[in-house]
């Protein structure tokens, strides 16, 4: 059960990484680009970033819920051995991951607001997308590092 949840957590995180990265690059493009261009990057960023909003929120929540279910197993089966190995930085890295993940969850309503409201400024929309991108990339990489040292 734990292994299945961990695999699902990882797979959803990969899809979420793809969606938020695609959205972040699309929103950062300097000017509208034609999708008819042949260059991969031109075609990659020539998407409407608004279409990613609901998918990002749904996948973030799904990944977060699975992470919450896995957390007790980590606390008992991984963190205690990490402490015994005196790998404080690995414990701290996972602590950062969990706090950033929770803060990211709380940022989703603002993210939805920025991407749904005409009154919302474009700079705020870009910033919250980049903040979520950072959190998702950080959580993905730090989760992998800690799981590679001592998995659940």
């Amino acid at each position, binding site marked *: 059960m734990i292994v299945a949840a961990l695999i699902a957590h990882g797979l959803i995180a990969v899809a979420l990484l793809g969606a938020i990265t695609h959205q972040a690059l699309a929103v950062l493009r300097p000017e509208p680009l034609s999708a008819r261009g042949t260059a991969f990057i031109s075609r990659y960023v020539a998407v409407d970033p608004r279409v990613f909003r609901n998918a990002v929120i749904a996948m973030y929540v799904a990944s977060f819920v699975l992470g*919450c279910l896995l*957390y*007790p*197993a980590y*606390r*008992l089966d991984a*963190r*205690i051995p990490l402490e015994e190995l005196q790998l*404080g*930085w690995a*414990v*701290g*890295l996972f*602590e*950062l991951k*969990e*706090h*950033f993940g*929770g*803060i*990211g*969850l*709380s*940022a*989703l*309503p*603002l993210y*939805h*607001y*920025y991407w749904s*409201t005409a*009154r*919302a*400024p474009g*700079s*705020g929309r870009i*910033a*919250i997308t980049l*903040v979520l991108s950072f*959190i998702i990339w950080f959580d993905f990489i730090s989760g992998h590092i800690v799981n590679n040292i001592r998995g659940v």
Partner: protein
Amino acid sequence: MPRMSAAWFTVVFGLSYIAIFALDLALFLYYPLVRQFSFVPLIDASSGPAMHWYGLMASAGCAGLAASVCLRDRWIPEVLLQWLWIVPVSAMFASAFLLRQFFA
């Protein structure tokens, strides 16, 4: 169902999260070894380690929910609207600072 303010939820959650984390005001603790939630620390050593994070999230979530019900998006000054994302970023920096002992 009352109309809720998404922006206020994020702002108040982030600000209260910093205070709750710094002061360790978790609403409850979870003991994974015995699979038990508790509002007070269990003194029995056989209970195993306590997890605070669920309680931290619940505490900050309650504050954010209360604010999102009581406050309105339109009350946010136009000039501040583009800077609200600074709150979660500040909460991240504060969390990193509070965890600095792990990296010393």
